[in-house]
Each structure stands twice: as structure tokens, then as C-alpha cells.
């Protein structure tokens, strides 16, 4: 029996394909990684099939590359690093297993997108802590496994949030439910006892979730996960504050977060805000951008179930007083940007075309984690680097997201480019590498390295690299899980 036939036996003949046009979809993405065509694409439907598939991969020593989101992909982590790989496309696993309004938890399979989950949690009076405008095809689980930043820092207690428990099939083929989902009992028995699979750590003296998060599919495949949600507020009021000085807005943001005043809270530069709001390209983009200050803070305040107007009322007073002390002014609109319109946009996935593809056709993100004290300098450095590489600074998008309750900041530069212009693409690739080298020596921590950053990131930290390789050997001794990624 051929290997394709063996896979068909496990998954059914309609769920395995080696058609050239199908393989081509997975052979490359928007990133700069070298294209490599996989051997075939397999689409399992459940945990049992995934387990069998991983066992098969161990027997045949076949590399497998898990993918949960639909295209376009941007980071190269789902493009095989070596030939002969089987893509494990999890998009058929689309069950929203459970939304538990009382305990603020949703349980989902990897193929569930934000577009599908948002209405389901709303129905139960909940809201998600979302990343910034994910594309419509983005897997919720994929986003959270990658520790992507989320827009409500106040509810982002730990960098692993809002992911809670998972069920994972490791590279060995063994199944483990992480956190409080581990047991005792089946999920149904746990639900009957009142449990909700909400504790991420554990079981017991290890935190197995943290070994799967950020692993880019190199340790195992997650078959479902629980996601922490928050109660939807009764009233939600959005504000914009503009300034030419990033530091002033950062100081205001610091107090908003420290005193737990804001729900959504993020900073954009004019280019990014205009790009998000513009519906017609390029005319509306330019029109909006020309009315905006260089930096814009967006935040919301909310009134919960109890006396929502009262809460809104005091928060308005408190935030206005704080703004006055910093000579800032929270507004409903700045230029052609409306706070209410932005609120509506940010609570849904991006409309098509995906906002990062608007205008030029592709985007390369340079992002890292940093802290308040270093942020302004790092933005200045990046502006200088862009100029050095002849990239128009006025067109570069910047997104700053406070995370972990303000302890950290996610800082992201969006470099929009024309993917058909190979010279421009080449320059941006070089810019990306130099940005890593320069910024990582000035306090920027590239916690999620992709593409050419990977080697540079691990070269800076040999001890962590050695430790991670030991862990990889435990969970994936045959190195079948997405080999060639990270330091594996």
C-alpha cells in the first residue's frame, strides 16, 4: 500500500490530496521563507484520526506540518522546512464544543475562526479578548497558540492568556489534556461536577500548555482548547486621543491600565489607523491619513451589569481629569476617524481584503515585546532603519499593544509592500534582518521568531536553545513535528 493509500485508510479518500494545485497552496506564503512543496495534504476530522496520523508519521518517519488557519499565511511557520512533508490541515475541525456563559469559557476545535466564534460567545453574553483585526480565515486557536497580543490588556493577566486548557497529541502519539482539563474523569463528567476546564497551569508541578504555546506545531497537535472570555458590558464607550508625542500617549495609557480603567486599549500610528478605516483605496486612505495626528490612542470604558451608567459616569470624570493633567483630550472623533466606527471594526475580524493586504498587496510584520521605558527609542530606531532602506516611513504602519496588564508592550511595525516587486521585497527582507539585529540589542525581545529571525534569536540564547531541544526530544523524539522550525 502506498503512503497516500495508508493515509486515505486513516482519514478517508476525500481527505487526502496530492493534487499539484492543492500542494501549491501550502508550498509558500507571504513571508520570505523558501518555498517547499509538501508531499500531500491530510485533513483529519477528530482526535482519533490525528493520533493515528501521528503514529503513522512516526512509523514512516514522515515530517508533518499542522495548519489550523486558512490562507493567506504570513510567517513561514506553516511552509515545510524540508521536503516530503504531510500538511495536516485542521480546518475540518470546526466544532464550537461548548460556550459556558456562567464560567466565561469557550471550548473550540482548531478550525474555528474568529468569525465563527464571536457570534457564539455573544449569544451567551460574553466577549473575546481579540487580537487586532484578525483575518476572517484566522483560527482562534492558532492565534492563541502563537501568543498573539490581544486588545484588552486589563484582562491579559499572563502572556499565555486567554488560552486555558488544551488537549494535545504530542509527537510521540501520546494524548495529554493540559491544566485542569486533565482530570479526573471525562470532560462530560467534569462538566457534571461543575468544572469548566478553566485552569491553564498543570496538571500539578508542570505547566504543559506553555510548552505547546509558541512552538509553531513542533511539539504536537492541539485538538481542542478552552478560551477565557469576559462578560459583555451593557454600555461601552470608545475614545480616541491624538498626539504628535508618543510619550504623552504612553503615559496616559500607563495610568489607564494601572488603574484598570480601560477595556480595549491600543495605539496606532496614522498610517495604520487610516489603513484600517479606509474603504476605498488609495483615495480614502490618503484623505483619512491627512486628517490624523501621528499617534492615536484608542480605548474603551465600559459599564457592566450593575449600574452601568454610574460606572461610565465616574470613569469619564476620572479619565478626563487624567487627560487634563497630561494636556490631552479624549475625543469621539479625530479628523476623519470616528471612535464608534473603530470600535465596531475592532470587535470583528477584518473585512476582505485583509487590512494588511490593502493598498500594496502584501505586508511584512516586524514585532517584538518590550517595556514602557524603551518603546519610544525603539520606534525612533525603526524609523531610521526604514529610511536607511529607502522605505517610506510615512507609509509604515505601527501598532503598539500593552499586554500582560501593562507589564509588557507588543510593538509591531507593518511594512506594506508590492509582492510582485522583487527588488522591494529583497530590501524589506534585509530591513527585517537588520531590524532584528539592531532592535534586539536595544531591549527588544523577539519572543516569537519566524523566518530569518529564528537563527539570530537562538544564537543570542544558547542555554535556552539547549533546554528546548531536550524538551523537544521528550515530546517528539523522531522530530516529525514541523522539523526545521525554531531551534529544532
Amino acid at each position, binding site marked *: 500500500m502506498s503512503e497516500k493509500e495508508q493515509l486515505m485508510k486513516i482519514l478517508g479518500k476525500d481527505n487526502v490530496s496530492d493534487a499539484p494545485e492543492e500542494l501549491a497552496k501550502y508550498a509558500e506564503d507571504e513571508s520570505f521563507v523558501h518555498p517547499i512543496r509538501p508531499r500531500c495534504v491530510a485533513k483529519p476530522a477528530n482526535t482519533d484520526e490525528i493520533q493515528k496520523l501521528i503514529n503513522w508519521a512516526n512509523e514512516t518517519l514522515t515530517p508533518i506540518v499542522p495548519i489550523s488557519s486558512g490562507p493567506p499565511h504570513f510567517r513561514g511557520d506553516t511552509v515545510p522546512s524540508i521536503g516530503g512533508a504531510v500538511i495536516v490541515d485542521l480546518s475540518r475541525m470546526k466544532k464550537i464544543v461548548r460556550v459556558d456563559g456562567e464560567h466565561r469559557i469557550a471550548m473550540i476545535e482548531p478550525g474555528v475562526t474568529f468569525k465563527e466564534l464571536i457570534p457564539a460567545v455573544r449569544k451567551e453574553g460574553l466577549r473575546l479578548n481579540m487580537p487586532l483585526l484578525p483575518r476572517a480565515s484566522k483560527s482562534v486557536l492558532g492565534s492563541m497558540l502563537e501568543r498573539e497580543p490581544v486588545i484588552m490588556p486589563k484582562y491579559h493577566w499572563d502572556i499565555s492568556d486567554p488560552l486555558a486548557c488544551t488537549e494535545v497529541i504530542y509527537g510521540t502519539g501520546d494524548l495529554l489534556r493540559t491544566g485542569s482539563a486533565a482530570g479526573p474523569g471525562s470532560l462530560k463528567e467534569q462538566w457534571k461536577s461543575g468544572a469548566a476546564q478553566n485552569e491553564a497551569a498543570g496538571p500539578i508541578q508542570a505547566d504543559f500548555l506553555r510548552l505547546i504555546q509558541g512552538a509553531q506545531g513542533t511539539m504536537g497537535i492541539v485538538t481542542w482548547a478552552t478560551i477565557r472570555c469576559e462578560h459583555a458590558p451593557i454600555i461601552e464607550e470608545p475614545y480616541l486621543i491624538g498626539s504628535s508625542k508618543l510619550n504623552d500617549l504612553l503615559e496616559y495609557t500607563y495610568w489607564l491600565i494601572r488603574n484598570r480603567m480601560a477595556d480595549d486599549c491600543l495605539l496606532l500610528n496614522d498610517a495604520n489607523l487610516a489603513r484600517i478605516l479606509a474603504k476605498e483605496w488609495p483615495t480614502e486612505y490618503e484623505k483619512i491619513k491627512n486628517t490624523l495626528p501621528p499617534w492615536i490612542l484608542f480605548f474603551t470604558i465600559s459599564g457592566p451589569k450593575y449600574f452601568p451608567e454610574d460606572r461610565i459616569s465616574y470613569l469619564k470624570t476620572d479619565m478626563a481629569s487624567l487627560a487634563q493633567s497630561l494636556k490631552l483630550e479624549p475625543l469621539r472623533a479625530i479628523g476623519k476617524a470616528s471612535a464608534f466606527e473603530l470600535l465596531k471594526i475592532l470587535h470583528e475580524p477584518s473585512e476582505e481584503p485583509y487590512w494588511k493586504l490593502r493598498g500594496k498587496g502584501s505586508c511584512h510584520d516586524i514585532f517584538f515585546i518590550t517595556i514602557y521605558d524603551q518603546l519610544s527609542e525603539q520606534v525612533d530606531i525603526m524609523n531610521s532603519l526604514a529610511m536607511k532602506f529607502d522605505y517610506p516611513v510615512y507609509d509604515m504602519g505601527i501598532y503598539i499593544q500593552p499586554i500582560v496588564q501593562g507589564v509588557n508592550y507588543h510593538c509591531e511595525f507593518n511594512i506594506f509592500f508590492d509582492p510582485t516587486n522583487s527588488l522591494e521585497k529583497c530590501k524589506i527582507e534585509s530591513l527585517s534582518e537588520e531590524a532584528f539585529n539592531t532592535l534586539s540589542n536595544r531591549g527588544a525581545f523577539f519572543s516569537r521568531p519566524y523566518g530569518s529571525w529564528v537563527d539570530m534569536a537562538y544564537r543570542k540564547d544558547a542555554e535556552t536553545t539547549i533546554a528546548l531541544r531536550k524538551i523537544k526530544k521528550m515530546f517528539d523524539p523522531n522530530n516529525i513535528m514541523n522539523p526545521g522550525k525554531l*531551534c529544532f
Partner: protein
Amino acid sequence: MALKNRDAYKALEDVLGTEYISEEPAVLDSYAFQWGAELFTDTPFLPRSGAIVLPHKTEEVQAIVKICNKYKVRYKAISHGWGFYSALGLDENAIHIDMRRMNRIIEINEKSMYAVVEPYVSCAMLQAETLKKGLNVNMIGAGCNTCAMPLTAHQGTGSGGVSTSCGDRNCLAVEWVTPDGEIIKFGSLGSGNGWFCGDGPGPSLRGIIRGTQGVMGGLGIFTKAATKLYPWYGPPQPELEGASPYYRFKELPPNFDIHHPIFPSWDKLIEAAMKIAENELAMMIFRLPPPMLCEALTGSGDEGAELLAEIQQESNGRPGFLVIIAGSTVAEFNYRKKVLAQIMAETGGEFLSHLEKEDVKRMFLWSETRYSGGVREAFRAVGRFLGAIGDSAMFQTSTRLMLDCMELKKEFQKRGNIRADDGPDAIIGMIFENGHTGHAEQLIMCHPTGAGWRDLMEFTVECEKLAISKCYTAPVTVWGDDAHDRWGPHLCNYHLWLRKIKKTFDPNGVSEAAMYISAKE
């Protein structure tokens, strides 16, 4: 008893100098004298270790660990050393590494709301500095004398967890001397970028150094770590009056209040606690059983008994909890009080009158903020406790399990070795992160004898069986091979992975694993 391997002793002495190593029997005994030792030896002493060493810096810790690996000498590091956990498993082939000389606060970053500490920085020591900057620590329930590092504690949870989270989730970057003597710096620290993040690049090594419980000395030594800080709306340098143990705020800080509501039933208590947590009203939600509440509010056992009688009369069996409300502004404080009143009305809650006295409020607010409730109360009666311990997943289910365990306890009390509660229950409870997670336990005081401890431990195991049969989440007291082997099959055989971690990172098996797991096949 002295360290059996004399070459190892000499090598350690060469690293530390004669002043910071000891095998004097009296010194060894001072470490072996631990509450709970009776369970293992029928005496207040555990077996002595072979030597005590006191390193001053990470390089010395690394040198010690390398010597231990070379000579196959087991070691266990302790920070503040709390109970039998800190000395179990040691003998003449093992050393105790006392981290008390590593007591520096390395950094308090006000704008990024974290602090970097060495292992002997206590919660009290760190809090004294952070309050000055308007920031607070996660005060561990075992008391302000415990380690401020978010790693060394067993569970790392405390009564303020509703607003200050808990141990495993407050941890940022870490400096770790691995069991075989390498130094690994986590996250941003490993990349040379400071202490602000403990995860990455890629998967997070935080995953192997603790879960809901710490590794309790069983997997190397943590020499520095960064911990998150939280807003403090009170005075930067509180003015006090009175004398120990009756210290109190000179004036109740503006925008602070403390109450002890009582409820018609446990269901109503749970409903109210969760509503308060989910609506982000409280700085602290802490359930103390009436006898412990009274111990906490008084300076002696006699005073406690007197107050208990008074409180019992008023509460008439109705359970309650402690809640501290604070606001960053007057308006916020008033809003929170208004919502609290509404929740009380919905759940039939009434404030216990004793806690409405102004001087009592000032005292209890200080003690709960600064000392952490639990310590005085846990030890005053007989000096020994443990009990039925719930999970760290949910306050609701954990409390319900404890209520079930109360019935079991009655049987054990008949044997006479477990102290009666002097009240309707012995349930402690706390809530973390606006109610997303929580914990409860039933602390039992036992007579300080081997028989007392054995009854208590038997009761604990029976409670575990109950938890398993009813599919309640695992408790946070799964220590040592026996317990891991007991629980592992019910928890997807996690213990087999834990053993692999131990074996991989401690190839010589020298990091003492009595409170963790061994690498046995």
C-alpha cells in the same frame, strides 16, 4: 551526623569559605526542626542533612550544584523554609542550601510594574518598598514572611488573588541553576534584554519549572526572578498605632473598606463571592472559617474564643467571607460600595457587626494587607495543620468539595487526634483573577504527634478519593512519588511526563525530590 563524603565537604568549603558551611549538630538541628516532622519521625525533628551551606551569589550556587553532581551528593535549597516541606528527604548524603544571604531586591520597575528579587526577599520586605511606589505584591497566604519570588512557593496563592493573581502566573523572567549546574535565563533575560518577559523565544521554559504547584526544591535552584506587581491605592507609607499583635492603621485609608458579609447558605455565599469578583469590585476576597477569623482578629487564644462565641451568636451558622473594597478615586470607591450593597441585597448577605467597628476595621485591614491572613490562625491553636486541599481551578467546585469533606472529617474527629473546629466549618477559600479561577481548602489542626499527623494524612487521602470519585479537579498537594503515582492515572498520566522532565534535567538525581517526583522508571 556530618556529610559523609568528605571530599565533597572540602570542595564546598573551598567555594564558600569556612564561615558559610557548617556541620555542627546544633546548626543542623535548627534546620531539621520543622512543624510536621512528627508525621515522619514521631519527633519534632526530621533527619539532619550532612551540612548547611549559605551561598551569596548565583556563581556560588552554581559551584555548589556542580560539586553535588560531581560527588553525587543530593541537595535541597530553601528560602524561608516553611514546615516539613523544606527539609524532607535529607540525610548524611545530602546538603541543605540556605539562600538567606541572597536577599537583594534587584529592581523595582514602577512603569512596567514588576520587581526582580533574590530568593530570600520576603513578601513583607518587597511590599514595604513597592507600597512607596503605589504598587502591591501578591501576598502569599502562608504569610508575609514567605518568599516574594513567584517560584519557590508551593502554590503561591493568597487572599488578595482576586486582584493580584497567583504564583505561577505572576512569574516573568527567571534565572535558574539547573539540577546539573547550568545557568539558564528565561525569556527576555536570556536574550540580554532584561527581566520583563519569561516566555520564549518559542515555547516557554516556564512550563517545566512549575505548574499549579512549585517544584519545591526538586528541580534545581532559582536564584533570581521577576514578579508582576499590582496597583496599591493606599498610603505609600502607612501610619500605624498600637503594639504587636494589635497594630492598626492610625486612620482608615481613604477609599478603603473592609466587611465580613454572612449569607443564608453556602450557595448564596458562592453566588455573592463570584458576583463581587466578576464585577471587579474587590481588592481581596477571603473566606476564613469563624474560628480562624476570630484568631486573626485577636491577640490570644482566649480572646479568640470569646470573640468566636459572640460571632457565632450573631451569624447563627451562616457562612461568610472577608471582602476588602478599594478604589483609585472616591467615585470609583463609592461605585464599588454601591454595587456591593446591591449584591448583598440579592444574596441575602449581611455585614457581621464586629467587622463594622471602626477600630476593628483599621486593625484587620492592616493585618490582611500586610501580614496575610492565615498564619496566626493556622498555628495558634496547636501549631500543626494541614487538611483537605482543593484545586486552584474554581472557587465554586473547590468549596463544594470541601463541604463534602466536612462530613468525612466528623468520623476522623471521633479518634481524638484532630482538633474540633469550634465552629460550623473549617473552610478557607480564595478567588483569583476576577473570579476566573479560585481555590478552597479545609485546614485541620492536629495534635503535634505522629498519631495526630497520621490521622490527618489518612483524612487527606480519603478526601482525595472523594475528589476523584466526583471528578473534582486535582488538589494542589500532590507531592512525592506516591502521590504522583496515585493521581497520575486519573490525570492523563501526566506523571510520566513529569518524570521525563526530572530525568532529563537532573541526570544525576541530586536535586532532592521528596516534594517533587523522582526519575524512577
